[in-house]
């Protein structure tokens, strides 16, 4: 990918540590609308990397697969997934980190994909709801969600499952009672009001019989 012409939009900003060049950078910031001009010609020790503001190449590891895409730095991970990669299991609901519908695992930790920049996820392992099943088999937690009727309309389900997966795989998995589950799931909203069954489903798996 390094020989693609658009790579110039994501150049290494050089000599950026020296006072003279910093002054130059500040001056040029007035015309910073176009990232094409962002790489100065001074050849000095590399102190920073600059991306954007236009689209730049990015590779993301999603559900174990590395995918190349080109997005602007102002693209959230959620938008990258849904609009650029057509990975639509992860839902956009509030777009402000308040509902948990877009939860994904980032290196195993649940995070709101709407409040993450795609570029902040470079080199990190992203798991979406599509990555919870393996070899076409639903995970025990997914099975439990079906068995306990933890999804009504199903729109919160992806986020719920991701948060729940982190819980049952997490360090406190052995000590998950209903209160601990409710606390761990407190950032996920369900408007159909399936909480009762969601907690029951997680409890049935957290009981320790099977891994998530």
């Amino acid at each position, binding site marked *: 990918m390094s020989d693609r012409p658009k790579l110039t939009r994501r150049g290494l900003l050089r000599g950026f540590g020296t006072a003279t060049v910093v002054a130059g950078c500040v001056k040029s910031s007035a015309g910073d609308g176009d990232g094409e001009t962002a790489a100065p010609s001074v050849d000095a020790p590399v*102190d920073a990397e600059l991306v954007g503001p236009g689209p730049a190449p990015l590779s993301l590891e999603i559900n174990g697969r590395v995918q190349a895409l080109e997005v602007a730095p102002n693209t959230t991970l959620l938008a990258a997934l849904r609009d650029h990669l057509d990975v639509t299991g992860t839902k956009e609901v509030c777009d402000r980190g*308040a509902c948990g519908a877009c939860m994904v695992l980032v290196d195993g930790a649940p*995070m709101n994909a709407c409040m993450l920049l795609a570029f902040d996820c470079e080199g990190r392992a992203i798991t979406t709801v599509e990555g919870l099943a393996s070899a076409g088999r639903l995970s025990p937690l997914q099975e439990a969600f079906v068995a306990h009727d933890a999804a009504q309309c199903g729109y919160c389900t992806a986020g719920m499952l991701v948060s729940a997966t982190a819980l049952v795989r997490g360090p406190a998995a052995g000590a998950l009672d209903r209160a601990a589950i409710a606390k*761990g799931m407190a950032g996920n909203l369900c408007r159909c009001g399936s909480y009762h069954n969601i907690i029951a489903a997680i409890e049935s798996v957290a009981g320790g019989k099977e891994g998530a």
Partner: protein
Amino acid sequence: MEPFSLIRPRTLKAARDRVTGAADTRVFKAGAIDLLDLLKEGLARPGELVDLHSLQDAEGAAMRALALAEGRWSIGALNTLATIAASGLPEPYAALKEAAGSAATPGIRNRATLGGNLLQRPRCWYFRHGDLGCLKKGGESCLADGGENKYHAILGGGPCHIVHPSTLAVALVALGAEVEVVGDAGARTIGVEQLFALPRTSPLTEHTLAPGEVIRAVRLPEAPASQRSVYEVAKEKQSFDWPLAEVAAAIVVEGGSIRSAQIGLGHVAPVPWRAVQLEQALVGQAPSADLFARVAPLATQGARPLGQNAYKIKLTQGLVRAALHRACGIDVPA
């Protein structure tokens, strides 16, 4: 969101140099939780985000550390709320862990940082509404004054009536923490209360940092092993919500009387509020339910509520009592 560039400096110096002198268009970025909120609402339109997660120098390491250094706990500004909540900070500092585990949601706590939590902008709904101009955004008046002000300040307000949103700051005030700030003249250390400014002196910003200054770490003072610290909060919704009010208390009881008491209040004032009169009334007294009930009103001494938030007076006093009971290990009569 408007387009912006992302800068990933390797050193704090490079990062600071990038922002210093251009703070209008270039901003630091860590977890970017609050920043993304501001960007999405069009409340901030920086041309560049200067990432602090990319730092590879010693400063970056200090910002990520959470460790005992020279007998004092130092918590780097890049530590997440989740890390702090699950950390090995000892019992005397429990209030900070409780506060960190109470703020926001599990997903946000995995991303939001200590530095970002301290420097986040207020949640006032007039400020956060992209189409409404207000004092804090350079407008003429505070729309909460005479408007919908149920969640606003009862102490220290005016001309803007925001409450400070940082939950960690409340615990840090009670614990007497210090903040290490790196600026042009090198590092300086200030008391956590000095990090924040009231709107009557600083209507547009909530903190006292100069442009380009960065919080490197927060340091906790040494505390006697007998110190108990607690965090109490009241929310309308128990799952995720912003506090209506919150109280952190750090108390040392020795020989049957209170030797020291430090109490921070949150979501009642434009800054994390120190309840000094209350502290003074507690020191030297034998802890008891009666004492707590008697002195709790001192927490809100001087309160000047707006049209819809007078309830916060009683509520804060109630939280103070709850916090004191727990910190002193005295059960509330059932």
